[in-house]
């Protein structure tokens, strides 16, 4: 789960990180009022769940309240990578002496949490990692002891930070690690972390993502969810316990199992089609879940045909077929449907489906071929 910059900044500040505290504005008038209160130059920052805000023109300076109003007017309603800006964060302008990057992530290959930092702050860290990996310094946190001060100091010295600023950096780095661990984050990032001309450390940006599997123990984080930033179908799917990801193709996919669901999308593409979604209906594929899956898939107006791919393991194929028939009694589906059913009692299952007028085949390749043809209005 993702949150906005202003929400991440608040969390970091609660864990002791000095952040450039601002106020959120939903209208140009509010932005003007905030700028008035702060006085002097302010930065107006689009609050959307995507990177690249700066490049897209979603972050701008305003030198007086009137300009703040004008800039907010430009940014509010702006489309950044397909997302509409509904809020801006107004923060006081700061005189920057030096910019750094500081992040805490999971190092999957080491199975441990890692802190990373770079003296090349304020730019896309993925570009730095790709083009100048030597510019990034890292430290791995101990699974039991966490991220110690000496590790943070070593990073600071490696980055060439002046001796009298090292303790301040180390304290922020340790606090960021604490924020990450205590909130069950999957990412905690400050880019840029700056030294002001006055010589103080300040987080000028804040980015955090959270582990969906840990949200149950962090009700406060769940409350930060911005429904405007989420695909409504994905949200509905999550509530029903179904993994669903919206894609931009026209072939709806309903599959049991995440790996098989990905392989099914790939099979559709191999046949020249484009999947409309990823959908894992769960292992059992019972009637209620399949009915829910139908309603999720058919909510997408682009869907021209539906592929159901079920590998019946311990759940028998005849039960799956009856479930699909029952589901179709609950949800009206007009798009052509091709069912691939394999595994235990699959033959009986396919007969049951054929009786109900459904196309049922036994291999994934054949099902993908038929559904692509059906999506183009052709009989396979």
């Amino acid at each position, binding site marked *: 789960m993702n949150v906005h910059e202003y929400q991440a900044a608040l969390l970091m500040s609660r864990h002791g990180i000095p952040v450039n505290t601002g106020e959120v504005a939903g209208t140009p008038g509010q932005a003007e009022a905030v700028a008035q209160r702060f006085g002097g130059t302010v930065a107006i920052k689009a609050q959307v769940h995507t990177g690249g805000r700066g490049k897209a023109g979603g972050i701008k300076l305003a030198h007086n309240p009137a300009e703040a109003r004008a800039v907010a007017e430009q940014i509010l309603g702006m489309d950044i990578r397909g997302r509409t800006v509904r809020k801006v964060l107004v923060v006081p302008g700061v005189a920057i002496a030096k910019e750094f990057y500081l992040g805490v992530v999971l190092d999957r290959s080491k199975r441990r949490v890692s802190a990373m930092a770079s003296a090349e702050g304020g730019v896309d860290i993925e570009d730095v990692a790709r083009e100048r990996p030597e510019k990034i310094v890292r430290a791995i946190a101990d699974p039991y002891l966490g991220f110690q001060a000496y590790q943070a100091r070593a990073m600071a010295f490696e980055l060439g930070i002046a001796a009298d600023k090292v303790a301040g950096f180390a304290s922020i780095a340790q606090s960021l690690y604490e924020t990450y661990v205590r909130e069950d984050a999957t990412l905690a990032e400050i880019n840029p972390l700056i030294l002001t001309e006055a010589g103080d450390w300040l987080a000028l940006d804040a980015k955090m993502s959270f582990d969906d599997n840990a949200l149950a123990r962090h009700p406060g984080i769940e409350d930060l969810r911005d429904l405007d930033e989420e695909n409504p179908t994905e949200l509905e799917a999550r509530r029903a316990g179904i993994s669903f990801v919206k894609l931009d193709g026209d072939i709806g996919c309903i599959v049991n199992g995440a*790996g098989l669901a990905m392989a099914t999308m790939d099979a559709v593409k191999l046949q020249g089609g484009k999947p409309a979604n990823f959908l894992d209906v769960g292992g059992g594929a019972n009637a209620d879940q399949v009915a829910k899956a139908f309603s999720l898939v058919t909510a997408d107006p682009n869907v021209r045909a539906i592929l159901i791919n079920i590998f019946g393991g311990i759940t028998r194929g005849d039960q799956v077929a009856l479930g699909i028939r029952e589901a179709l009694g609950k949800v009206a589906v007009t798009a052509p449907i091709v069912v691939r059913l394999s595994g235990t009692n699959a033959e009986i299952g396919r007969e049951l489906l054929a009786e109900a007028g459904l196309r049922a085949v036994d291999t994934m390749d054949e099902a993908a071929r038929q559904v692509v043809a059906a999506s183009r209005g052709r009989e396979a």
Partner: protein
Amino acid sequence: MSILVDKQTRLLVQGITGREGSFHTAQMVEYGTSVVAGVTPGGLGKSVAGVPVFNTVADAVAATGANASIIYVPARFAPDAIYEAVAAGIPLVVCITEAIPILDMVPVYDYVKSHGARLIGPNCPGLITPGEAKVGIMPGFIHQPGPVGLVSRSGTLTYEVVDALTRAGLGQTTAVGIGGDPIIGTSFVDVLALFEADPATEAIVMIGEIGGSDEEDAARFIVENVSKPVVGFIAGQTAPPGKRMGHAGAIISGGTGTAAEKIAALGAAGVSVADRPSAVPDLVKSAMAGVRS
């Protein structure tokens, strides 16, 4: 021969009286797995599918000599269950449970390693040595004994490939589902090493997916350490970046972990990479023929 589980496996089921635990215990017993004990705190004296239940793993091990454990407890109790099994000296722990918070797994992983135990999973279907022991939730009947070792991050996609192999007359030594989470106890590299050392395994199939770099690590390992033919398949070529595709670990983040990178890495390591699951058996056959000729 086989790896990790066989007729000598004496299996303990943690969470045996739960819905999943009791159902799959019956399935494993029916398959012929030697399930010797179950554990549910407060469950002493009960029996599930003829298997006696104990209060603690230590009690169960003392009474039955269990040497492997499978865990079916809910996510919030699963780390504790893994610790309990390892602390009781169980050398092989298989955790089926999904949705364990990632940060819970960081110390679990370390604890298991530092105690010399092996964890399979979490969020995995388990593993099976056909005809000997089924330690998991997979449908047993699609498997058949034979020369192919299989390792996969997926569940039903594994069954799909196993089924295709069996239909093509290619049985399996052992099929291992290592799990779809970002932190799993046993990686591709670990299982590849075991298959390389197993005399009965003549060819290896590895099924990967987007996210992380375990497939790339496997590719490097194969170049230096694996003499047997390896056939691969990677799911998620059409997956968009930044979106979790069902499995917590199946996400392309920061532009890395794409299917294309993994396919390229495996290809460069001499692995025959199938473009679809149904193509795996023929690639295995030609790879095996190539070795023999």
